[in-house]
Structure formats: C-alpha cells, structure tokens
C-alpha cells in the first residue's frame, strides 16, 4: 500500500514539475531547448563563434598586411619586408616558404603570409555570406510577401518574374557581369560589393517563393480569419500576425544560404571572377588545389583555407538543420 502511495506521490510530483515546466517555457525557450538538444547544431554554433572571433580579432594582432609580399636576400637568406627593398639588387620574392616562426603557415605562391590572409579572407567570405543573404531576404520577403498577401495579378506578375530569374544561368551571368564591372571602371575594392549585390539579386527568387507559400497557407489559418473579423488594419495584420509566423522559415533560409553563398564565392573565384586580387577570400585561397604541384608539395598553402570553408559551411548547415527541427512544433519526439 505504502508503495502505491509513494508511487502516486511521485507521479503527482512529476506531474507538477512537468506542468510547471510547461507553464514557464515560452515558445522561444522551447525552440532553444529543442535546438540545443541537437549536438550537431551546438557544434555548429561553436564553430561559427570561433570563426568570427578569428576573423575579427586576427587581423588586429597580425603584424603583416593582407597583401604584403616578402622578399629574401639571395646571399644571406634573410627575410626583407616590402618597405626595405630599395637599393638591394640581390632580392628574390619569398614564395612558398615553409612553416616558420615568422610565418606560422608559410607564404603562398606570390610570397604573402598565409595566416594573415586567412584572417582577412575570412572577413570577406563571412561578409559576402551575410550581405548576399541579407539582400536576397529583403527582396524576397518584400516581393514574396506582396505576392502572397495580395494574390491576383500582382501575384501573377511577381511569380513570373521569379520564374524568369529562376531560368537565368547563374555562372555565365556572373562571368559576364563581372567583366562588365571592370569594363565600366569599378575598382577592385568596390567590385566586391557589386558582386554581392548581383548575387543577392540573382538569388531572391527562391526566398520569394518560400515566403509566398508560407503566407498563402497562413492566410487560410483560423486565427487570420479571426483577425480579419475583428477588422484590424491591413498593415497591422501583416506586421502582427503574418510576419512573425514567417520568421522561422526566413531564419532557416538565411542560415542555409550563408553557407552556400560562401561556396559559390569560392567557385566564382575559381572561375576567375570572384573577389578580385589582391584581396583574399577563403574561396580564392582554396582554389590553389587545382595546381597539382601545390597540392602535392605545399599542404600549408591549400589545406587551411579548405578546412576553414569546410567547417564554416558545415557549421551553418548544422545550425540550419537544428533550427528547422527546433522550429517545427510537430516535432514531439
């Protein structure tokens, strides 16, 4: 009997606790809880934090410039920095130097410090990811939202526009536009921003489609009908009821796309139209793998940028997956 009572008490207690937990947890906390249950997602988050710190703080600590080249004296083998070159006729460029105390990851095929370039390159790669995704989200949410909410002719036109952008071949267009930038005298520093804008503009279509689909289904929900019947203003309906409910899918698209944009940038660099020389990006640093001599003999040049890309993109993917699982309220398991 006492056993039973004890059991009953424990059950009650558990139930209390359970209810207590249920009551305390906001939806955000629930999502966070589900998110942090996913170990891969936690790992991803950790990696991204480390990367951001590395790129943000690294360049401040590094004693070298992003595109500073190093020379060496042919007779003494002593390293000579760029501003001390004048008047010395016996110099060679310090290309493909091995790992040393002054160059922790050696120098690349043009005689620049690999570690320093990794830090600057990371800044570019991460910025490209964030900005491109930002642009595609702004355009995509705006047009997708309008199409989904108003429907009819507006929807028709925007969706056809989507299809047109869907049919545009990305690589050829990037190649052609990139050469256009130069043709119209856009300097290498500014070219980066133009590339980001073009990528964002070419990518908005899928965001718009997703947002539109989401809004379409939300419009049919009972609570929207309820909101409708209370007679609130359109903008309030959109801001208060529709937008918050599209946020999960937007965050999801964002995390997933940052990774793929970083990869796309590396492919563009490989094709010779990405981030312009002399600036570094992980993508243009990694594409030395196609040089079989570097691939065979200089892992210090090709492996670090490749690994950083791998971990970063992987991390964004893990986070994206974790978020999706976390956001989905039907995931009860």
């Amino acid at each position: 009997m006492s056993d039973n009572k004890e059991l009953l008490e424990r059950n009650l207690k558990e139930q209390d606790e359970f209810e207590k937990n249920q009551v305390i947890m906001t939806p955000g906390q629930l999502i966070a809880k589900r998110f942090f249950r996913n170990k891969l997602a936690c790992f991803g988050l950790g990696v991204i934090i480390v990367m951001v710190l590395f790129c943000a703080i690294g360049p401040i600590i590094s004693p070298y410039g992003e595109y500073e080249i190093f020379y060496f004296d042919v007779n003494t083998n002593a390293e000579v920095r760029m501003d001390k070159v004048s008047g010395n006729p016996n110099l060679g460029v310090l290309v493909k130097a091995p790992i040393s105390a002054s160059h922790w990851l050696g120098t690349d095929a043009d005689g620049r410090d690999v570690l320093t370039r990794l830090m600057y390159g990371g800044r570019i790669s991460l910025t490209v990811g964030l900005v491109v995704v930002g642009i595609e989200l702004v355009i995509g949410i705006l047009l997708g939202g309008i199409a989904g909410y108003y429907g009819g002719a507006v929807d028709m036109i925007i969706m056809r526009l989507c299809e047109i952008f869907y049919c545009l071949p990305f690589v050829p267009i990037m190649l052609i536009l990139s050469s256009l930038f130069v043709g119209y005298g856009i300097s290498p520093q500014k070219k980066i921003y133009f590339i980001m804008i073009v990528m964002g503009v070419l990518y908005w279509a899928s965001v718009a489609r997703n947002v539109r689909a989401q809004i379409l289904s939300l419009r049919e929900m009972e609570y929207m009908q309820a909101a409708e019947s209370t007679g609130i203003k359109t903008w309030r309906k959109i801001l208060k009821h529709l937008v918050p409910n599209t946020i999960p899918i937007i965050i999801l698209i964002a995390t997933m796309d940052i990774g793929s944009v970083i990869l796309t940038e590396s492919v563009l660099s490989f094709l010779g139209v990405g981030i312009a020389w002399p600036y570094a990006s992980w993508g243009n640093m990694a594409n030395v793998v196609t040089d079989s001599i570097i691939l065979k003999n200089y892992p210090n040049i090709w492996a670090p940028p490749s690994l950083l890309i791998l971990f970063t993109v992987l991390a964004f993917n893990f986070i994206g997956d974790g978020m999706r699982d976390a956001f989905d309220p039907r995931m009860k398991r």
Partner: protein
Amino acid sequence: MKKRMKKLGALTLAAVSAVSMVACGSGNNATGANPEAGANGASGNSAYDTLVVGTQSMEGVFNPYFYSSAYDNQVLDAVFSSICSLDPDGVLVDESGHVEVEEKDGKYIYTVSLQEGLVFSDGEPVTIDDVISFYYVCADPTYDGMSTIGTLDIEGMADYKKSAAVLWKALATAGKDNTDFTSWDEATQTKFWEEDLPSAGEKFAQEIVDYCVANGYCDDATNVAAAAPNWGFEVAEGATALDFWNVMVDAYDGDILTLSATETAGSSIGDLLDASYAEVIELAAVDTITGIQKIDDLTCTVTFNSPNISADKQIAWIPIMPSHYYTFTKGDLSGCRDKNNAPLGSGEYIFESYDNNIVTLRANENYFRGCPKIPNLKIQAVDEEVKVDLVLNSEIDITDPSASLEIIDQLNQNSDIASYSLVDNPGYGYIGINAERVSDINVRKGLMCLMNREPAVKSYYGDLGVVIERPMTPTLAEYPDDATAYYTYDPAKALEYFEAAGYAKDANGKLCKNGEQLKITVGIGEASSHPSTPILTQMANDMADMGAELVVNDLQFSVLSPMVKGGELDMWVMAWGNSTDCDLTQMFGSEGGTNYQRYYDPKLDAIQAEILKTVDFDARKALVAEELDMIMEAAVYMPVYQRKNMEIYNEVTFNTSTLPAETTTYFNYDDQYQVLEMR
C-alpha cells in the same frame, strides 16, 4: 577557371603568320641523338603504334583559312605541308617548294615553285593552282579569317579586295561627284548623299552626344556644342547634331568610312542606314590579282609594289591546300568553310576524326618525304595543370606544360620516365603605359623607376626566364644583346620624376597636381600566379607611401584585351608571342594596329621605314638598337621577361632518340613527324 584563362592567354601567342609553329621545340634535348640513326631502326619492333600528343582545348576548326586557336593549328601542322618552312635557326628553307626574289623596276618579284611529283593524301597531284587559290581565298572581299595576305602590298591586291563591297561603303568611297553608274543608278546616289547619309550622320552625331551625356562628360543631350569637344571637335554654340556631323566630315576630308570606324559611339554609319544599303554589290569586273601570275603547272610569280623584309615568309610559309577540295568563287567561300571538320592536305598524316577531345590521324603513305613510321598520331586536349602527371602516368607521350622550377624538379626525379627540353619563347612579357592617358613623360619615367623586375622574375622563373631590357624578343637576331637597364628600380628617383612633372605633397600627404591625386589604373590578366604580380604589389606599396595610388585590376583576358585596345587603362600587363621578324611598325608605328600605348612619333616611323628597307643585317641591327632606345626613352613600354618554353617526352613509350638533333624555338618534333618512332 584557371585552365581556360591559360588557354585564352595562349591565344595571345597565337600565330602572327597564317601558318603553324605552335609549340616551339627544344634546345638542350637530353638524348640528342642523330635522327638518321633512328630512321634506320626497325619500326616493326615497336610495342606501341600510336603517338599521343597532349595539347590544350581545341575548337574543332581544322581549316587553315578559318582557324583561330593555336591548338587547332597544331593538328593542321600534321595534315598540311607548306612550300617552305623554318629551319632550326629560323631561316626559311625549302619544304615542298622553293621561293626566289628579284628586284625589277622598283618592284619585287617572288617566284614560287613546287617540287615535281607531289600528291595530296587523296592521290590528286599538287599543282601551283593549289597555292594560288590560297592567296585568292585570303584576299576575297568576304574573307574573315586570320590570314593577313590580303593586306600585303601585292600588285592588284587592293583592286581585287575592293572589287566588291557593301553598297553604302561603295557609295561613300565613290564620292558625291561620281559619274560612273555601272553598279548603281544616279537616283540611288543622289538619295544617298542628299537624304540618307545626312540623316544617318545626324543620328551618328547624336549617338556621340548621347554617349557623352550617359558617361557624364556633359549634361544635356541637346547641347551639341558641349559634347563635341569630348570627341575632339569644335562646333559653334547652338549647333545641331547635323552640324556636328558636317564638321566631322570636313575634318576627315569627306572620308566617311574612316570617320565611321574611328569616331563611332557604338553604331557605324552602315547600321544607321536602311538595310538595303548593306547589300554586297560587284563594283568592278576584277577577277584576278594582277600581281599573281601562273607561269607553268608548278610555278607562279607574286609581285610586290614595295620592299618587305618578311614577304618571302608571308607568301611561302603557307599550307598547300587542294583547290579541287577547297572550292570557292569570288564572294562565296562556303566551299572552304564547310570543310572545318575534314581537312585534306599533303602533310605527314591524314585526318580521320575528332571526337572525345581527341583528334585521330593516320600516316599518309603519299607524303613526299616518306610515310611516317608511327602509323597513328593522336592529338588530345588535356588540362594544363596535369600535363606532367599525364606523361609520368604514360597516358600521353609528348606535351608542352608551362615551365616551372617545380616541374623540372619533378622530372629530374623521374628521369627514367620522362625527359624534357627547354627553348626560348619567341616573345616577351611587358608592362605598357598609355601615352595619351599618362601624357606627361616624367610621370611615365617615374612609373618606370618603380618597377622592380628582377626579384619577381627570378623567383617566378628561376633559370627559366630572364629579365630583358628592350621591347623585342631576344630570339630575333636583331635584338641588341648588350643592352642594359634603361630604368632601374629607385623610388627616390621616381619621386624626383613625379616632382618634375609638377606633383607635390599636399596637406593630407597626397601627391597632387592642381588638386588631383596621382592615380594610375593598371590591368593584369589572372594576377595570382603571374610573374608581374609582385612588381605591381611593390609598386602599389611604394606609390601609397608617396601619397599616390595604383589601382590594380585583375581581369579575365577577354576583358583585359579590349580595354587595352580601347585605351581605357593607364597601364597594363601583357605579352607578345610568335614574333618572326624585327618589323615593329604594327606595335610602335603611328599607323600600327596594335599601337596600344598610343605614342606617335614621326621619328620612330622614319626609322622603322628605314629598317624595313635595310637588307644588310649589321646595318639593320644597329638601326633596330637605335629604334628600341627611342622607345625606351619615351617610357611607354617596360619589357619584363622572356621565358622558356618546355616540352616533355615520355621515355617509356617514345623513342626519344628519334627527336630532332637540335630542337630550337623554330624547329621541334612536329617538323619531322616522319622520322619519329615509338619504343
């Protein structure tokens, strides 16, 4: 993609001449045995019956008239034989024919003759008509290939080329007062000059004004007077577009064609005229080029109006193409065009097929020097980055990677599998400065003093490249070997030059003149892994220290090239290739088509004209040295390097003792396919 870039880069090196010489042979060939010894060897004992040559991506235009890729031409080399070819020293020697010159009444008569008994691979005999037809096709009014034979000063050539033209060009050339109405009637002519041309001209001028507005040179599309000065013309205040047009016509003395080609802001006059003016009309019944005369079945003469030191190469170093196969009539070359995928000639090999990136060729039994010993030749397009690995894995037998110190290391470690040869590339890399954009010679000289070439070339090429001091390839005998550096790297000196040009540091530490900072824009193709990259990096750094700015644009070759041509860059990095003579008029003459630096000097023109007429070598060499010094003094061209070309051979499959005894810039394995043997 890197590979693509390299390929396009290599197109720069594409032939100067209509004919061959793709990869350029080997000098210190490791085996170096006498080819005759190999020639007597028993070819029946070979374990392999196919020679595989690795080249780069081909375009499949296997037609000597129309190819544009140097790699397509590599195939043509094996299929066609030529009248003359180059020997190891770069001297023209007889191949299947012979050429002789004599001077008569100020004209130069070249007699081209063929050997007796030559046949094409289809069994048809070779006659002089097959040679003459080559000249005619290249001179055809509708010809659009790469051969420059049509531009030679051959007697009657110009008349033939001009004997057919599109209507508006013909009308424009004939002039307002033309009274010859054989090809068009008077009404057409009157309408053209009175109505259509002025209205097209007005559009043409308006387009220029619109262009100026679009690019911010002036701000009002109706204000013609403000736009015209941007184009170098002065028109009265309140003038119309039509007035502007008339001013231009006057400036060109009524030469509408040149006007249209030079001043255009997009459309040519022809675009702005009615489509009926674009028709091709026969202007004169000129069916022959008077300077080309057939003497007998195997001989013809070609008469030049003026002396030309490379005329013999231009007319004799051409492939012999069967006129019964490559048929044409004046104005219609379709019978030649449709043979792109089926070349037929009298060379060592017969074209079989091109697919899967592989050209398959089989030995030609009718070849006049004897059937080649290797029954099959395959030319395969491979990736530049893996050429060495392909040879080491015995997938291919001969190829030409771009030489680097690491490749040499790798080959030395595998000397039982592969051997290599190095020869000087008949070209050079340079940094050019546009004299119109950087008009102050002191600024140009200052820039020259900032180019630290030695460390860059030394670490990039090692022994595989040398810094050169004059803008001409040292493979030419006329190159002044004793030339020393004209400008040495010296930032202090550079600053002096800039100051002499009127630049001074302002309060913000910027190097300014009239309030404008010294800013130079430079273009380079594929900067990462370019020998000139460290030079520019250093230059940018030094200029930043001085308060000036160097903007480096890393461009695709296909973008760089038009920008350089269009004069849109202050400075650029490029290379010349396949130079076969010391005629520099195209690059440095006032009329030169490739005078990208836009530096025009009558004294330079005079000395160039002198060089072309100077037959005596020593005198010519002295003149060339003088010319090159003048170019250096003008500070428009900084020669950077001359590199070596590499060829590698597979020792396992290929009998390297059958290679030429001495392979040079001008003579390599593909000039003697018939004696090569496999193992």
